[in-house]
Each structure stands twice: as structure tokens, then as C-alpha cells.
């Protein structure tokens, strides 16, 4: 029997060590695995590298992890949002390093990392400051940049439904980076609003096949950043 369920978020993230690289799903609050991030805050790991499209809002979820000074590097495309004050301070102070990557290049690098492709060429960012120091090459008369696959020790992602084999469904635009991050980590940890038995998800509609998932934890009623911020929550 195969059963990837774990009891709670704390157990799901228990083994994450200092210095780990962690992909965190979400685009803004959509798809952000807040309960897993909060469990990671409680757990204490530090000196983390976080790969995520944004850097969180307010002082909950990813922003709270940053505020606790646990993240020394972020790889991201858009580290400022409304209500985003935590990252700018850490960045200016020099505590948290930033690797800025165009959004599509970030997505493709993560997919490549999961697909065993060490590097690929892309037209994105040619002629811009984000191309500085990168290798160029011409194909069919057009310039392209060499970009490298990106993998991580862990991925923390949020699903709508999972089964105990790790097959996943998502909710609307909360899907965003989760399916590719699931591919690109040694250990992929999922919080899902419901965890079902094998056979309860139609194999035709599975978005992330279970092979990419290591642990699933049921978080039946996940919080949203905007709700927590509106309620004045600051984690922990």
C-alpha cells in the first residue's frame, strides 16, 4: 500500500534543515501554502533559499518567514506587492539576497530542473540588464540566452484535492507554479483541502501525477493572506 499522508503541517516540514532550498508555490496569495509556511516558521530552520514568484504580503505566510530572518536568498520575479514591506527592508539591509528572474524564465527553469534538462536557450531578457554575465547564442538569426534548470531540496505547495498516492488537483489560478515546483524538488510537500482515496480522482483530470509528490497533509480550511492581514494577524 502506498500512503503519502502525514498527520499535520508540523510533521510534513519536520526534517527541513538549515540551509535548505525551498520552492514555495503561489502567485500573490493564490496558491500560497500558508499553513505549511507557518509550520516551517514554528520549526525553526534558517539560512533558507526561497524560490517563489513573490515575497508575500503583510506579516503572514512567506512575508512572516522572511521577517523572522530565516531566508538569506530569494529567487523570484516580482518581490514587491501591495502590503509588501518586509522584503524591501531585508533587501536594503543586505540580509536577504535577491536573484531576479523574469517570470517565464523562472517557470521554465523550474520545469527544466524537474525534467532533467540542465540548460536551455530563451529569447527573454536579451538586451536587458538581466542578461548581464549570461551566455548568448544565435539560432536562426536571433539572439538567445542560456538559462539553467533550477531544482530545490523541498517544494511546499497547495492543492485543492489530493489522493494518498499524491495525485493532485488545484483551484483555478492557484495552480500557477505548483505543478512545476512539484517536479523540481527532492521532496515535495502538499497541503490540500481534502485528501482522498486512490480512485477518487479521475485519472484523466489529474494535474500533478503522484510520482512528483512525497507528502500530503490535509488542511481542510486554509487561510488566505488577505483575510489574515484584514484581521490584523502577524505571524507567529
Amino acid at each position, binding site marked *: 500500500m502506498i500512503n503519502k499522508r502525514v498527520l499535520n503541517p508540523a510533521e510534513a516540514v519536520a526534517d527541513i534543515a538549515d540551509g535548505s532550498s525551498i520552492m514555495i508555490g503561489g*502567485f*500573490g*496569495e*493564490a*496558491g500560497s501554502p500558508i499553513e505549511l509556511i507557518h509550520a516551517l516558521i514554528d520549526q525553526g530552520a534558517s539560512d533558507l533559499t526561497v524560490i517563489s*514568484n513573490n515575497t508575500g504580503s503583510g506579516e503572514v505566510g512567506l512575508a512572516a518567514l522572511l521577517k523572522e530572518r530565516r531566508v538569506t536568498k530569494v529567487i523570484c*520575479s*516580482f*518581490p*514587491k*506587492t*501591495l502590503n509588501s514591506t518586509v*522584503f*524591501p527592508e531585508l*533587501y*536594503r539591509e543586505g540580509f536577504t539576497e*535577491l536573484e*531576479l*528572474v*523574469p*517570470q*517565464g*524564465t*523562472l*517557470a*521554465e527553469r*523550474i*520545469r527544466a530542473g524537474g525534467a532533467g534538462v540542465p540548460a536551455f536557450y*530563451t*529569447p*527573454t*531578457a*536579451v*538586451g*536587458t*540588464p*538581466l542578461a548581464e554575465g549570461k551566455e548568448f547564442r544565435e539560432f536562426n538569426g536571433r539572439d538567445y540566452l542560456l538559462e539553467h534548470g533550477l531544482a530545490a531540496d523541498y517544494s511546499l505547495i497547495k492543492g485543492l484535492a489530493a489522493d494518498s498516492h499524491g495525485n493532485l488537483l*488545484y*483551484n*483555478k*489560478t*492557484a*495552480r*500557477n*507554479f*505548483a*505543478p*512545476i515546483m512539484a517536479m523540481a524538488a527532492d521532496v515535495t510537500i502538499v497541503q490540500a483541502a481534502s485528501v482522498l482515496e486512490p480512485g477518487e480522482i479521475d485519472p484523466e483530470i489529474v*494535474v500533478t501525477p503522484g510520482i512528483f509528490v512525497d507528502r500530503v497533509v490535509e488542511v481542510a480550511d486554509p487561510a*488566505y493572506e*488577505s*483575510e489574515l492581514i484584514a484581521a490584523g494577524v502577524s505571524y507567529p
Partner: protein
Amino acid sequence: MTQQTQVTGWTREEMAQRLAQDIANGSYVNLGIGIPELVAKFVPEGRTFIYHTENGLLGMGPSPAEGEADPELINAGKRHVTANPGSAYFHHADSFAMIRGGHLDLSVLGAMQIAQNGDLANWSTGKPGAIPAVGGAMDLVAGVKQVFVITQHCTKTGDAKLVESCSYPLTGRGVVDRVYTNLAVIDVTPDGFQVVELCPGVEFETVQELTGAPLRSASE
């Protein structure tokens, strides 16, 4: 060029409406944040545009009715949206495969500067201490078939946005096809900026005065 010439020209809505006239029926369109979003309000009679938002939705619809927002159904500007009949959700790598692979017909973006060779700067002033953030802009201009910029002709301080060459960091090199401002519709051609249409009541010379590079008039 920093002189404050008294011209207002088209409103933001009129600029968006003018741009919408140039989009063919059935086009797949990505609208940037700000003025570009207004384009969706002015779809010409008899045409349908399908909106792509790079965070994973094709067939994006308008804002939801009061109380019907799903925090996980948002656009690239992180605003609540809806999904039209015939829409599809997908992940980020697939979304940017659509962009990079040339499957979208049109990207409409704002701008800080547009150079006469089509260079675009719209993501960073390059000022020290600013938090750099790029999002999907570089991917859009590199991949989408046509790139339209919609912007005020000048900055709030009266500086030209259409220039000989960009002083701000580039988003892309030679990527802009056409610019819609409050004063004119201007093509980027191999010979530089070419006025396609002037806002009624606005003189060519006025537009030239407010532009940091030579303009060719519509009749040239």
C-alpha cells in the same frame, strides 16, 4: 522638451478605445496592468477577444459581482477576475510557453520609455535602492507576435517618453510595434517613429515638440 505644452488629447478611455479598434476578431490578447486593462471595456461590436493572464488563465472575464470573488481566481495584477465560458486553467510553464512560443497575438503594455528603434523600458528606473521587480514583462515582449504600448505621451513632469534611445534599463530590444498615447497613434518603423493618426485637434508640430526623437508625419 520639458516645456509644459497645454494639450490634453485623448482620455485614458479614449486611448484604450482607439487601441481596441486595431485588434482583430478572435485575437488572443494579454493586457498589462493599468491603462492596458481598460481595453477590455471597448471591444468593438461583433468582435471577440480572448484574454490571457500569465498567472494561468485563458478566457479571463471581467471582475466578479460583489461577494462572488474567489481569492484564487485573480489576474496578473492580483485583482479578482472571472473565467468566461470556453476558458482554461494551466500552470506557469504552459502559460509562458504560450507567450514565448508566439501563440499570443497581442501584448498591450504600459511604458516608461519607448525608443525610436522599438526598445522598451517599463520595469525599472534603475535608481539605486529601488527594489527591482520584473514579473512577466520581458517574456511578453520577447514572445508575443505584436506589442502595443499604451501610455501618456509624456511623464507627469513633462518629459518625453518617446525617445531616441532609452535611458532606463530595457525590458526588450526592438520589441514595440505601435504606441498609443493621448496625442497620437505612432508606429515604430525601420525609419523610426511614424505618426499613424493624430488626436483630433492636436497638431503634428505639438506632438513633435513633446517627442524626444524625430517623427514622420502621417502623410510621409
